């Protein structure tokens, strides 16, 4: 497969970057929200999943609005009107040879798509509006909050500071937070971002809603953090041929949260057929790690430690041959091919949590999960409940995990049963203990003696012993009594924990330096 080509459509004086992907019999134009960058989208797991799903049943046409992403920059102080930007959609469709297309308007892209649909009904096959609205101040934010948002965008643009406003559920996902910072920087300059926000605030397309004749699907997350779900309820009342589907979730960007659910709804609406469920299932071991102690640590310290722990988690999971499968608040999910690897990783994570100063409790279970996407089925729910049931520092596993890990060297003790609503019978549990080695436990060695522990006189005596001299000869050489030499030798053997004169001689030879032992 050759890389996706980025082309440029001419719209007036501006060049609009666009990509075409997929081989479906009808065209689908994705009208992006606030900011976008065609190249960067493919680097995010959720975004590329959404695009792959949509392009599996359509010829998907993607573009960056003028002033954003890969399209021409415009004078940030004189940004184009909504009408001009809507006309960019037409220019891109013309360039891609699309006479008629379904439009998917996401967030700020929704008013643009509505305007297009009302203006060019003959070119609109259908309309899908995700997290959309007709009037900014009424459903996104009132003027006073907008000023604060713009000020924040101007001072902290490019750092990912806007993430909590769009996807609060992903703030703790350090990898996504970093991506979001790049997304900001590569999608718009700080001045353009502030100007775009100001311009979007002027959006009011309520008067065109009655003129939309295309069949319309409205999708909105029930607890959307950015756009009030009432915005779509209003659209459902005003657009003649519209149907509203509210989906669970609070993160606003269309490529976050349950992307498959959104793609399923769109596919069914546009093709008349529900996507065939991807029922490829595999046997896997899931590890759910619960870290806590929030109350004891305080929010700030918790947040720092939580981030550190997540970085360590990704590292350790990779090192144990697993895959990080997502985080949900205090719950961290990893996936492994073998129970022994999951258990060893759990032990390493327990140690890491201790080092960082957090409490951990973990659950391990084995079962079938779907090959693609985050683990969400019964196996995931059981594992999560085991983690909830586990005590501080515990690695609580189902008996099945222990049976499969036989011979791995991991040791288990019986931990009774747990009754779970979803299971007919109580689940037998074990606690994973530290690894049991076949060789006897080694006692910690005493700290090896250092030559510096000896006095200057004792060092002289050791040197002479190493020369093979007797106590009498040493006494004569050092002008000491033989009794004193004997006492020195006894002290030396005691200090160095050595059994004999010969051993002391060998020690001296080992430690001899330019200044003697």
């Amino acid at each position, binding site marked *: 497969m*050759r890389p996706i080509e980025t082309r440029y459509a001419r719209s007036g004086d501006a060049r609009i970057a666009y990509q075409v992907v997929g081989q479906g019999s*009808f*065209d689908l134009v994705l009208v992006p929200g606030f900011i976008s960058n065609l190249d960067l989208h493919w680097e995010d797991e959720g975004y590329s999943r959404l695009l792959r799903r949509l392009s*599996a049943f359509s010829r998907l046409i993607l573009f960056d609005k003028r002033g954003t992403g890969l399209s021409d920059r415009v004078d940030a102080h004189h940004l184009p009107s909504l009408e001009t930007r809507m006309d960019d959609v037409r220019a891109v469709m013309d360039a891609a040879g699309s*006479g008629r297309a379904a439009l998917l308007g996401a967030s700020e892209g929704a008013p643009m798509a509505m305007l297009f649909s009302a203006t060019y009904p003959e070119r609109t096959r259908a309309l899908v509006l995700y997290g959309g609205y007709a009037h900014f101040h009424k459903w996104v934010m009132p003027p006073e909050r907008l000023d604060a948002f713009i000020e924040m965008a101007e001072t902290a643009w490019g750092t990912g500071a806007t993430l909590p406003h769009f996807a609060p559920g992903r703030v703790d996902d350090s990898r996504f937070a970093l991506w979001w910072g790049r997304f900001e920087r590569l999608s718009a300059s700080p001045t353009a971002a502030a100007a775009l926000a100001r311009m979007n605030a002027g959006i009011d397309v309520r008067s065109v809603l009655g003129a939309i004749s295309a069949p319309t699907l409205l999708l909105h997350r029930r607890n959307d953090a950015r756009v009030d779900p009432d915005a779509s309820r209003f659209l459902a009342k005003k657009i003649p041929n519209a149907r509203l589907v509210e989906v669970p979730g609070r993160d606003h960007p269309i490529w976050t949260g349950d992307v498959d659910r959104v793609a399923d709804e769109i596919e069914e609406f546009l093709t008349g057929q529900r996507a065939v469920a991807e029922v490829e299932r595999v046997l896997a071991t899931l590890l759910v790690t619960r870290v806590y102690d929030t109350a004891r640590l305080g929010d700030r310290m918790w947040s720092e430690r939580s981030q550190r722990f997540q970085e360590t988690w990704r590292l350790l999971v990779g090192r144990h041959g697993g895959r990080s499968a997502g985080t949900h608040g205090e719950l961290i999910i990893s996936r492994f091919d073998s129970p022994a690897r999951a258990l060893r990783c759990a032990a390493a994570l327990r140690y890491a949590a201790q080092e960082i100063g957090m409490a951990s409790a973990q659950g391990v279970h084995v079962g079938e999960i779907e090959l693609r996407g985050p683990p969400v089925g019964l196996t995931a729910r059981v594992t999560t409940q085991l983690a909830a049931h586990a005590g501080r520092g515990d690695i609580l596993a189902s008996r099945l995990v222990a049976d499969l890990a036989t011979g791995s060297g991991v040791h288990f003790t019986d931990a009774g049963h747990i009754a779970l609503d979803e299971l007919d019978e109580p689940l037998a549990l074990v606690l994973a203990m530290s690894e049991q080695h076949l060789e006897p436990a080694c006692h910690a060695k005493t700290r090896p003696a250092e030559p510096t522990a000896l006095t200057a006189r004792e060092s002289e005596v050791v040197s002479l012993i190493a020369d093979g001299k007797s106590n009498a000869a040493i006494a004569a050489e050092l002008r000491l009594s033989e009794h004193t030499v004997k006492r020195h030798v006894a002290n030396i053997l005691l200090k160095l924990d050595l059994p004999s004169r010969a051993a002391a001689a060998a020690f001296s030879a080992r430690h001899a330096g330019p200044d003697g032992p």
Partner: protein
Amino acid sequence: MLTKTQAVDGAAIKKAIEGRDGKMLSSFYTDDALVRVIDRNNPPSKPREIRGRAAITTFWDDICSRAMTHKVDTTIADGNSLAFTQACAYPDGTKVFAAAMLELNNGRIARQTVVQAWDE
């Protein structure tokens, strides 16, 4: 449009496809016709199926709304079977090649299987 007595043939198909005449194309099918499309996303064990004249009309309307060129090169007729190849190009240069096998019933298309490949 076809009259009841006029049978679909290679020349009619060539004219409708190259002229991007969706209405004409959909009139070639029986009411309960089945079009199967096999391509990268729709493998042979699970081809995309478009059933009935309404769905087939939408299918051809979508295809014909695209500002692209179609060229029907070869048509072969053998009793109630008809086959043709089709070379298409988008304005950006992307090429698509398709081969279609059709079964006719009373002069109309009852069943069609299209195998297509795209530049990618």
